[in-house]
């Protein structure tokens, strides 16, 4: 695995086109899914998806192969979303701020579906879609990274640039929120 990462790092340093094409194919689903959960918008997720790969091309030399490539990739994607939020001065409860530090955690209004809800239920209607939609982004993000992407706690801390204790705390609260939301059933 470490050797694979090193080879990947060398390829990225060389701006290897074939390697980039392969990586885009390989990680398209996972990156898009992560961005969709972060942005709650299909169009934005698509834009950030493309921008993320442009950044990978431009800053490939910064990847040293010490950590999983996907952790580095998600971090780039996350930083792009945060930069965009800063530029647009998006200030909302469901932004990438910690509910523990800001406003208390609240579920979205039941009769007003959010963009994520609309995106997720457009093609597939399941209880978990609605439940995820009710969870603040900050918790949804760590749940996705831990249980869908199978990243380790330290890797998640790397993606979030946050202390391990914060990651754990968000995971515990997120899991509790997910279980609670699923118990409540679809809105």
């Amino acid at each position: 695995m470490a050797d694979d990462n090193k080879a990947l790092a060398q390829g990225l340093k060389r701006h290897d086109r074939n390697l980039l094409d392969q990586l885009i194919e390989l990680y398209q689903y996972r990156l898009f899914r992560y961005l969709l959960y972060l942005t709650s918008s299909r169009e934005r997720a698509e834009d950030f998806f493309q921008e993320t790969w442009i950044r990978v091309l431009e800053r490939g030399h910064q990847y040293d192969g010490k950590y999983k490539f996907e952790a580095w990739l998600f971090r780039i994607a996350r930083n792009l979303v945060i930069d965009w939020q800063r530029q647009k001065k998006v200030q909302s409860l469901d932004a990438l701020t910690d509910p523990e530090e800001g406003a208390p955690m609240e579920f979205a209004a039941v009769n007003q579906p959010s963009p994520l809800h609309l995106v997720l239920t457009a093609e597939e209607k399941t209880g978990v879609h609605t439940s995820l939609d009710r969870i603040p982004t900050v918790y949804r993000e760590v749940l996705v990274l831990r249980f869908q992407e199978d990243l380790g706690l330290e890797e998640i801390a790397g993606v979030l640039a946050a202390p391990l204790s914060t990651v754990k705390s968000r995971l515990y609260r997120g899991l509790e929120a997910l279980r609670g939301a699923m118990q409540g059933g679809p809105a």
Partner: protein
Amino acid sequence: MNKNLHDRAEKLIAQERIEGISQSERDWLAAHLRECPVCTQVAQQTTAALHALRGLPIPLPPGLAERTQFRVQLRAQEMREREPKRRLLWIMCAMSWALGIATAPYVWHAFEWAGERLGVPRLVWEMGFGLWWMIPALIAAAVVLMENLRLTNENDQSE
């Protein structure tokens, strides 16, 4: 049953999935779950929630990878085209700095001689020498800044 036991069991149910638990904790939890239907339900709900989360399908926009690959190729081409210019710029900078260092003693004497001939105070011709020596670095810095500014504008326009 003691509430503390339920609290401990609920904590271990989450901890098992998030961080992992020791064998003794796993044994204790298993024993507790055999006797406690409430905590068993919590464990089942947690498992079901995570199972649903893991199997959640996300529809991928058609042609996303192809469009992205195309954009990345274009950007890569752009970068390759710029690379020789940048390399030339750095070579020129390096050469001018090397020449500056090599010729510094002669230029110093030249400034000293000119200063004495024209009756210019020592501080003034020394400052002139410093400025002369800094000119290549100032030009290089200006060019790099302008290039970065141009790139930023291009990126803003493409967005």
